[in-house]
């Protein structure tokens, strides 16, 4: 209701008086939208903190659709614990500082029971820190940075995406055997990039390969021509690229232009579906990871896709991808955990989630998945894929392997993650 109100007042005021107009609208709408459920048996309010602008706007939207579908399905069954579920979304702008403010707002003013959603690890950190302070459970749905379940883990935070280390685990050994031992790393010069490349490096060296060179590309690089020339000069067997966000998009395009996608062999980290959907397949070179694919030949998948298309008949993205999947699965599991816990009390729900086990069938993956209680990262099947040149415009991936969670576990996460004790986590029961 707040939304309609505000939009209305927006359109209402004439340009000339815009400022006072907005000011009035601000107060008006605020007064109007003082929270419905201060506490007790009102609806369960879930704060959605997915990005709607900035680098990850598109993934954020997909992420949010996933959450909303899970919530819609529960509401259809009459909600959770007999309480309807309502959501409030705030754009975190792919900006950590905004993330904190959004979290503070959702918790203190909108009195949300849970927080869900993130693509960028920076934003996830910012939110989880505020969440931890207040004891609000927060689901990091889609940030694949190892630090999320490593040094920046929190008791209230649960991480649902596979991380760089997992994908490296899955990719490196078989790439080493198929393509060769001479590797070159292309690393985005920031924390995520360095972590991912570090993981790759150790694996490569353990398996007897050599890293002949590492190219650091600053965050925000748009022109990779010199990098690509350098690669040609070094002539490695394999290039392992840990390049993310817009940088990755730019790089893909330029590699495609050079037709360098096949030779040398490329190992990319995860390719998020919203980032690649609709692009020509030559943008999808080399081998890359994903946690799920809409064309997996598993029971339930087809139905899941159908449900997606029914609920979102007019989204550009005709089939759900990994980001949607993570958003959906995370939310789904949370709501189930609440149901089994029989309460929204955060400690109870945390305990539920820590012992979470989801059957392969429910996950629509090849292996059972479980939550690692020490790192709060979902241990799940990791798929390797490559471009599917033959297929129709939706069927872009060719899945080439699937690895069981235990075989791709992030080795040093448990060492680096120090969860706060439950006792130090304030009790929170909205």
């Amino acid at each position, binding site marked *: 209701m707040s939304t309609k109100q505000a939009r209305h007042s927006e359109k209402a005021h004439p340009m000339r008086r815009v400022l006072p107009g907005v000011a009035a609208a601000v107060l008006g709408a605020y007064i109007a939208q003082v929270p419905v459920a201060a506490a007790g048996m009102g609806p369960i309010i879930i704060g959605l903190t997915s990005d709607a*602008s*900035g*680098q990850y*706007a*598109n993934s954020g*939207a997909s992420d949010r659709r996933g959450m909303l579908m899970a919530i819609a399905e529960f509401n259809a069954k009459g909600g959770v614990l007999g309480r309807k579920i309502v959501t409030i979304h705030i754009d975190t702008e792919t900006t950590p500082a905004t993330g904190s403010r959004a979290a503070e707002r959702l918790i203190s003013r909108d009195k949300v029971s849970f927080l869900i959603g993130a693509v960028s690890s920076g934003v996830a950190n910012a939110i989880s820190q505020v969440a931890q302070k207040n004891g609000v459970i927060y689901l990091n749905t889609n940030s694949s940075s190892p630090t999320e379940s490593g040094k920046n883990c929190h008791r209230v935070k649960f991480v649902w995406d596979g991380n760089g280390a997992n994908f490296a685990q899955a990719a490196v050994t078989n790439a080493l055997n198929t393509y060769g031992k001479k590797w070159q790393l292309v690393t985005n*010069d920031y924390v995520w990039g360095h972590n991912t490349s570090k993981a790759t490096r150790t694996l490569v060296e353990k398996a007897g390969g050599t890293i002949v060179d590492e*190219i*650091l*590309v*600053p965050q*925000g*690089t*748009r*022109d990779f*021509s*010199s*990098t690509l*020339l*350098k690669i*040609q*000069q070094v002539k490695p067997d394999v290039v392992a690229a840990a390049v993310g966000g*817009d940088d990755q*998009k*730019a790089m*893909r*395009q*330029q590699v495609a*232009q*050079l*037709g*360098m996608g096949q030779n040398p062999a490329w190992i990319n980290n995860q390719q998020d579906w*919203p*980032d*690649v*959907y*609709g*692009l*020509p397949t030559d*943008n999808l070179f080399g081998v890359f990871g994903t946690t799920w694919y809409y064309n997996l030949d598993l029971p339930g998948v087809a139905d899941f896709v159908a449900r997606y298309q029914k609920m979102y008949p007019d989204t*550009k*993205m005709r089939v759900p991808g990994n980001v949607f999947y993570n958003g959906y699965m995370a939310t789904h599991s949370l709501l189930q955990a609440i149901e089994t816990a029989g309460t929204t009390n955060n400690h109870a729900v945390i305990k539920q989630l820590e012992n979470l086990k989801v059957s392969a069938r429910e996950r629509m993956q090849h292996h059972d998945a479980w939550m690692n209680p020490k790192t709060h990262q979902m241990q799940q099947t990791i798929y390797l894929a490559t471009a599917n040149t033959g297929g129709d415009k939706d069927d872009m991936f060719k899945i080439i392997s699937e690895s069981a969670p235990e075989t791709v576990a992030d080795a040093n996460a448990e060492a680096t993650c120090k969860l706060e004790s439950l006792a130090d986590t304030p009790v929170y029961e909205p």
Partner: protein
Amino acid sequence: MDFLANLAPHLVNGITLGLLFALIALGFMLIVGVMEVINLAHGSLFALGAYVAMTIIGIEPQWFGPLGEWYAALPAGLRYSFALVLAPILVGLVGMLLEFCLRGTYGKDPLFGLLLTFGAAMVIEELIRIIWGSGEQVLQTPPAISGAFIWNGLIWSSYRFFAAGFSVLAIVMVWLFLERTPYGAIIKAGAHDSEMVRALGINLSRLRLYVFGFGVALAALAGIIMAPIWGLRPHVGVDAVIPAFLIIALGGVGSFGGAVVAGVLVGLTVGITGAYASEWSLMSMYILLIAVISFRARGLFGKKSVLEN
């Protein structure tokens, strides 16, 4: 020797990159030089140009009935060149609209023009998001200029060289326009004293309108050229406006040659650092600017500008 063999391709690459930078800065330079408006919407108009072109190229047959079908049947190359002409014009009109909004700020602190365009940048970016969605898009290039070729043992992108060549063309055209036509003379006069323009009995506000439109059209053109390299997303403009800024500062406000030289200089710097100290490749251009400006008050070839007071 071996080192030189390694270096050579990076030099070539740096120069192509530099020409692209120069193209990006061209429209920005014109507007800042002639109208003393720092157009922060340059970036989002750059993006808008690419989006419009993409739409024009990809027009679906059913949109305009038979005309649409005839159009869609045209070879990709033709549709591309068509977009290359039409899109800048359309975006140029948007620019003129923006110029109307700007009129209030003339003669006031240049800050206001700068901030108005800052607001406009946000609006345009959001409009793009609303119209085309926030997803990654691709601007299709015709086969003739796509793909790659091998040149002494290295793979080079054909499109990149097309783009560089096109930049040279655009730069030369603009230069001829400014130096060899009466309009150019008037524009240059307007750049240095609007008094004189009035004396010449030229309608200054119309001059401003056209110049701004023209500058914005150039921004759009740059957007179309860069999109196949950078990719296309609503906020891609941010990547364009900062280099543009830098290059103008480096070359000196109001100096055409300066902008071009500075562009190439920046390209070379980024290209070389990209090869030998890649992690500093982005930083290098700022260092370059600071180094130059600290010693040359007005950049390499800057003239005194009203914007200094």
